[in-house]
């Protein structure tokens, strides 16, 4: 996974926002997942707006109190986790 990558949601993933966070359900596996406020913002940029991981990092750096290297590392790990859970597909 690279910062220039984008992601698209896998088929069968439903998402609902709840009080600033996101809950995701994979209909194929029946597994539930949660994204906190930072993850929810990343999902918005990546999935809703179609931005790259770098775009999501920039948005989060503006809105949350964290250093860019930490944000990049966290978002790369988040996308890898989402990919591993078959919630998203990474598009170079």
């Amino acid at each position, binding site marked *: 996974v690279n910062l220039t990558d984008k992601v698209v949601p896998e088929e*069968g993933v439903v998402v609902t926002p709840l009080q600033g966070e996101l809950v995701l359900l994979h209909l194929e596996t029946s597994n539930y997942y949660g994204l906190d406020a930072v993850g929810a913002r990343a999902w918005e940029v990546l999935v809703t707006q179609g931005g790259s991981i770098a775009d999501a990092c920039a948005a989060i750096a503006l809105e949350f109190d964290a250093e860019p290297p930490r944000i990049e590392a966290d978002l790369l790990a988040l996308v890898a986790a989402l990919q591993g859970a078959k919630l998203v597909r990474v598009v170079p």
Partner: protein
Amino acid sequence: MKCSASVTSDSASIPEQDFVWGEGRARVRLSIGGSGSLAPCAGPAFHQWLSPCGSLRATFHHSVAGYGVRFPDCAEFEISRDGAHVAAVGAASLDTPGLLHLFWNHVFPLAASLQGLPVLHAGAVEIGGAAVAFLGPSGIGKSTLTAAMARNGFPFLTDDALALVLQDDEAPLAVPGHPSIRLWQDSADRLAGSEPRAGAVAFTDKARVPAGGHFTHCEGERELRCIYLLGDRAVKDADIQPVPAARAVFDLAQSSFLVDPGDRQLLARQFELLSRIATRVPVFRVDYPRSFEALDSVCHAIATHASELTVNP
């Protein structure tokens, strides 16, 4: 394990009966009859229920008409895809009250969920004109806490299966369930005392205490004020903490009746319903000392907490 299902003469005496949950919130026509196993339970199981100790409680099977639910050595049920019809076959050792008990506590909630009614594994009582629910896995203490609350003057709506009716822009309505509480013997001895017991049923050691005496049943639907997730953390006094809505959805999903978790349509509908519930109803985790001596003070703490929510939502 073979399910030795055959119809007892007692069961055969009520071949078909309509059951209604609440004021027509869910309706099921139950047919009892036939001999031998129901065909749906002959195929492979796609899902199962386990007891807290890990023993097999029920298996779920697909059928042409809908779903088969098999309680090993006790009974088999077939639920139509729309949840409106249920066929049952009881083992020779299971009398009609036992079969109806299984139906009412386990199968009717599944059928109701197929009719679009979200049903939670939860006890519920009335506090200040509203309902509060106690949620958690089997064995966590829902029935004991529900009974203790009832004994402290808060009428119970249900001890195990809570149906909810969602309303636009308002908290859901909690629908009363069967007017009895099932308790393990030690809880029954401490909380029900000399209250009359219903007849024992073959598949469980729990005592059934019908409503009456100290246990008043709330028979009307009540707005659901809040949900308490029963925790098992060791504490000296009751400790009540809010649970974020996004986290609460996980707990609601784990405590929901759902016939087929692999059915995308059912799963998506449940997800939508539970998300709406989590948005509209505050959820709290309550840890409390696990001793009968502490139960009255736990009930008081919960009642005070819920009442303050009512005043200052």
